[in-house]
């Protein structure tokens, strides 16, 4: 704790470039950099192993468990025996398992995720075209949710047991119990569907109206379409950020350095902002990245409910057919992005917290 007591920010920011770029270390802890290289290598290796595990899982999940993948892929559709043969050959199912696996790995390395049934297009292409809307939705919602959650969590934790704390915690716990898709449906019914004479404030779904032209108008129109999906996603995500920040701040509450800060005569507000929050943020950031899988889940449901033309909607469409190559491709893509985000968190974390580097 002593490291981060008086002024943790400038110190760690000064140390930041050391970890990233090789070069002479100004000042303290010459051994720290070597350790950090090892740290990065271990994390990178771990992520690669995780990625490989995802690939192996998806191979066995989608090819081996169904018994007859062709039957699974053509569920509920009429196929002639010739078509079956063709599919069998096309998916290489006449080859031994290890050859299939090698072929599958080779395709993956070339970013070839196969052909979607429904769209008759390469899955990779579909993902690329649908990525933008999802990033827009998730990015906006995560930023708002994180800001809101961290802020409210700080307030709740700092005044624990107060009315504000109880209200915030209660709301957060309730939102934890609310199914995302249901919240979205309610939003549509109340704010877009015109139930009970309510005005149609927002569109019920989609990303834009067809008859809008001009850059400015399109931006306004898209923002208008974004309000409800973003609000739903924020409601689901911020509760978690709030709870993590709150408990993380509570962990710091008893610390000696806070007593010192108060003894110096700092105002309560400054003790919170300069001392408690920076330290409480560290575990919060890690946990937030660990929970990024839930952001993905939330996106799928919100996009499915609001017909937002992103990856989640694509996943939902793939499920209802079921379009197994598409579902498999998205499974790999979602898992890979979560693993990548976690790796990113591992890489960024030591820049903020010098304790990790040792």
């Amino acid at each position: 704790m002593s490291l981060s007591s008086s002024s943790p920010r400038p110190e760690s920011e000064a140390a930041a470039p050391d970890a990233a770029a090789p070069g002479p270390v100004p000042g303290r802890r010459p051994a720290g950099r070597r350790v950090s290289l090892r740290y990065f290598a271990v994390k990178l290796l771990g992520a690669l192993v995780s990625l490989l595990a995802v690939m192996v899982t998806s191979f066995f999940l989608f090819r081996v468990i169904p018994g007859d993948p062709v039957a699974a892929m053509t569920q509920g559709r009429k196929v002639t025996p010739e078509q079956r043969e063709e599919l069998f050959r096309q998916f290489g199912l006449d080859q031994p398992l290890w050859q299939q696996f090698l072929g599958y790995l080779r395709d993956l390395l070339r970013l070839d995720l196969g052909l979607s049934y429904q769209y008759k297009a390469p899955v990779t292409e579909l993902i690329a075209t649908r990525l933008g809307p999802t990033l827009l939705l998730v990015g906006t919602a995560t930023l708002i949710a994180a800001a809101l959650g961290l802020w409210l969590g700080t307030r709740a934790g700092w005044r624990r047991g107060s009315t504000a704390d109880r209200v915030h915690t209660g709301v957060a716990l309730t939102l934890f119990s609310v199914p995302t898709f249901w919240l979205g449906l309610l939003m549509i019914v109340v704010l877009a569907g015109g139930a009970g004479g309510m005005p149609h404030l927002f569109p019920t779904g989609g990303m834009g109206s067809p008859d809008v032209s001009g850059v400015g108008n399109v931006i306004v129109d898209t923002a208008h379409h974004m309000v409800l999906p973003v609000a739903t996603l924020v409601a689901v995500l911020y509760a978690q950020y709030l709870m993590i920040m709150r408990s993380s701040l509570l962990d710091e509450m008893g610390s000696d350095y806070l007593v010192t800060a108060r003894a110096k005569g700092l105002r309560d507000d400054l003790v919170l902002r300069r001392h408690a929050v920076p330290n409480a943020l560290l575990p919060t950031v890690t946990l937030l990245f660990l929970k990024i899988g839930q952001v993905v889940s939330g996106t799928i449901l919100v996009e499915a409910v609001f017909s937002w033309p992103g990856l989640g909607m694509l996943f939902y469409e793939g499920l209802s057919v079921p379009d197994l190559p598409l579902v498999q491709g998205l499974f790999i893509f979602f898992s890979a992005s979560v693993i990548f985000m976690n790796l990113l968190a591992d890489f960024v974390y030591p820049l903020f917290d010098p304790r990790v580097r040792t």
Partner: protein
Amino acid sequence: MSAGPVERPPGEAGGGSAAPASPRALAWRRRRHSLGRFWAGYRGNRAGLAGLAGLAVFVLIALCAPLLIGPADLSLTDAPGGPHEPPSAAYPLGTDNYGRSILDLVIWGSRVSLTVGFLATLMCVGLGTLVGIVAGHYGGFGSTVLMRITDWVLVLPALVLAVAFAAVMGQGTVTIILAIGLTAWPTTARLVRAQTLAVEARPYIDRAKALGGGHGHVMTRHVLPNVMPIVLAQTTLTVAESIIMESTMAFLGLGDPNTLSWGGTLQEARNAGAVSSGLWWHLLPPGLAIVLVALAFTLCGRAIEGVLNPRLRERR
């Protein structure tokens, strides 16, 4: 965890001050005593009591559902009311697109939702406890690998993984239970492993080993009872998660279309156009039921956690 056997007065070392009792009776007295202490702690948490009461109500409703509702009330072809009637005296919550009473659907749905919630939880808590204890007890390379796998599953998006399982295995209630059970266990495994390590560091484990207790004996007779309280708290929290997950998967169309669950009812409502025509009475009750049950379980779980972990308790 400081609320372990150390604090229980008639514990392993200091007991037997009264008349000599058989070890079994002693053990039972100790258990009764700690249960009483636990209840005394739990009683102090008002939210936990509310959760427990809510839980009791829902379980009662689910158990009594066959007494209240006959098969005729839920018949698709021969439904008692007209389609999409608004709430009235005859149908307090209105009717669905087939003319069935929404109230009946919600009551009947509690059976599937609770069953799936409990079974999925049983599976994932069982799996998590097993992995946690084994990883914590044996240690070494195998344990490292086990925990790497746990971390890996923990990081993957649970819904995507569960949905991928379900998409491959086909629709159905069993599929949903398996999918939730296979994806939600890592949290429990990590908690249990941490607790196992804490318990195994205590001297009485050494004593048991010195007296010739094997791995199985130590794990089942000494570690498991000490891990159980944490598992219990985790269980109640997992049930809430499982129920939400079940409704989500049913909503995504992965449930059995012939069983009535809350998520399935919501999916039907959406397919019947309840969203666009603003039929709030078709959407509101099943969702509220999910929220209430999940909240009740969450409150119970947090209350149990609060009792077990004094650090958490003094914060509230």
